[in-house]
């Protein structure tokens, strides 16, 4: 059942998953980074290598989106990250967010084996944000953080997609 959702082997090997509310000031950092990266990937001819997903918040079923990925990049606004952004590897962890309506990236990874999905290597890009008022635009500092984070993510994705393509080339039958 749900073959399209669970076992789509034709999926792009790289997934960028960003979340946040575009109407709440710096909470839009994740989605805005996603927009910039998607435009860049298309211009760079990497569109087939990378899938871009946006949501309001992470949930258990996002584990299904992680199936058949060689790398996953999570992107969110962060009130704790040192400016302009922080990057860290994400490991599966059954943290307290399982009792909430919004899961952490760690908790989503932890849910993968429980829905039959192999845990992919994952990285979290937390972009420093400070103000989250309804209707507000990005703070000036947040815009600078965004630009720096996007530049880092472009380099990361270029490297990851190159690795992914090399793997695909070497695995082709002769």
């Amino acid at each position, binding site marked *: *059942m*749900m*073959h*399209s*959702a*669970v076992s789509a082997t034709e999926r792009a090997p790289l997934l960028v998953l960003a*979340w*946040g*509310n*575009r*109407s*709440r000031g*710096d*909470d839009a950092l994740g989605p805005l980074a996603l927009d910039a990266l998607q435009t860049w990937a298309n211009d760079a001819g990497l569109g087939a290598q990378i899938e871009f*997903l*946006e*949501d*309001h*918040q992470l*949930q*258990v*079923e996002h*584990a*299904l989106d992680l199936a058949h990925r060689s790398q996953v990049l999570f992107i*969110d*606004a*962060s*009130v*704790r*990250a040192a400016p302009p952004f922080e990057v860290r590897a994400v490991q599966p962890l*059954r*943290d*307290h*967010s*399982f*009792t*909430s*309506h*919004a899961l*952490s990236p760690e*908790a989503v990874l*932890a*849910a993968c084996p*429980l*829905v*039959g999905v192999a845990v992919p290597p994952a990285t979290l890009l*937390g972009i420093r*944000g400070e103000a*989250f008022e*309804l*209707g507000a635009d990005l703070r000036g500092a947040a815009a600078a953080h965004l630009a720096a984070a996007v530049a880092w993510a472009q380099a990361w994705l270029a490297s990851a997609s190159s690795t992914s393509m090399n793997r695909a080339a070497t695995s082709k039958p002769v």
Partner: protein
Amino acid sequence: MTDSATSSSPFPLETAAHPERLRRVAIDPVSRVEGHGKVTLLLDEDNRVQQARLHIVEFRGFEAFIVGRPYWEVPVMVQRLCGICPVSHHLAASKALDRVLGVTQLTPSAEKMRRLMQYGQILQSHALHFFHLSSPDLLFGFDSDVRQRHIVGVIEAHPDIAKKGVLLRKFGQEVVRATSGKRIHGTGSVPGGINRHLSPADHRLLRGDAAQMVQWSLDAVHLTAQLHAAEPALYNRFAAFDSNFLSLVRPDDGAMDLYDGRLRCIDPTGQRLVNDVDDQRYLDLIEEEARSWSYMKFPYLRTLGREAGWYRVGPLARVQTCDIIPTPLAEAERQRFLAWGAGRQVGGSLAYHWARMIEVLHCAEIIQTLLEDPDLREGEMMAPLLPPGERPGEGVGIIEAPRGTLIHHYRVGEDDLVTHCNLIVSTTHNNQAMNEAVRAVARDDFDGRDITEGLLNHIEVAIRAYDPCLSCATHALGQMPLEVSLVNADGSLRDQVLRAPGGTLQRPSLAG
């Protein structure tokens, strides 16, 4: 309960006569609901509850945010109210703006695409709520080990149930994506119609899974029914009270209709208090009262007044206000549900879960049927719009959102900018009911006892049954701990409990 202590309020336990003499317990925030709420209990010297309130402490201000925007932006913008049911706002706004533009009849393709979107939305939201947020309480018990009482605990203990829940939600989201164009903040519904048909690929995708979703939904209904049968005393008693019930029903036959209809309200005996009211006249029917201790208003029927006119909305209301569910499997399950009430309306708050799964089944059946309709893939998408100067300029859109009746009301000027916006969201309709549920639990389960995590969870279970959406913000990286403080009458801290990451309770040593 001490009635004399609450004589200043028409609602027992809402307002204590001498709050300054009472100890205060706060649950802040309430967990496993959408957004933040806060519960306060005031206890006398014998630990008897004298006052219990659910406060909504976040002010959204979304109505002011909408005023001044071009009307065509509104159906997309209002989706940012909520991360769980954005489509309900999308469609309620679209329906209201149809009226603003003078459209009273959509094209068949537009109406059916919107309906498919709506039923997919309710299916995914209900699946999230039941399987992810509430099933841990119901399957393991309210007092069970908090380290197990979450969705992963359910996956480990009942992998088949949990996986069905995850995939049901996924299916509902695929319906939303296929009809609205995007997973979130879709643009499929526009004032006056729609802007896309269902693609052949999406049609094949959804049609291939629809029958399985019906079966899994039926399994979920049976699970909730079995839970009631296993502990009838608990399910009948817990947070149970009489109330009126309000929902839309289909004109002519009174059938359940989650997309459109006329307003009906019944009393606890099933007697119709209000029937066949045009949705455009909601202001004639409903009044909202503000109270000083909560940002969320308290709606009631004008004709009955604030003390007798409050009501419940949502699944428990809908399965009882309608005369029939127009899909066979769900109607059969509704009859089984009604038999549980033995001639009276079912009033226990936990029955919301059973009713919610009946609606999931209904949604799955509707989706399966709609997918056979060629109008989804072809046909006129837009109804003719009146030019400025001829259009009414004002409209109301009412829809049955997952949590209950949702009202959007707009006025739009000749310059196409919104001049007035009034939203009554489902959780607001249930404000009095959730407070009654908290008081019932406080009175029956909390009175005279010490704070434990399990006991606190009883209060949260009662609130959670209503699936409240208390906030529409999403969160930056961070954590949401639970802090409970017991304060003496003189304001000094008597006890404090912190729910730490992982769910364990800690009692930090108190200074002095």
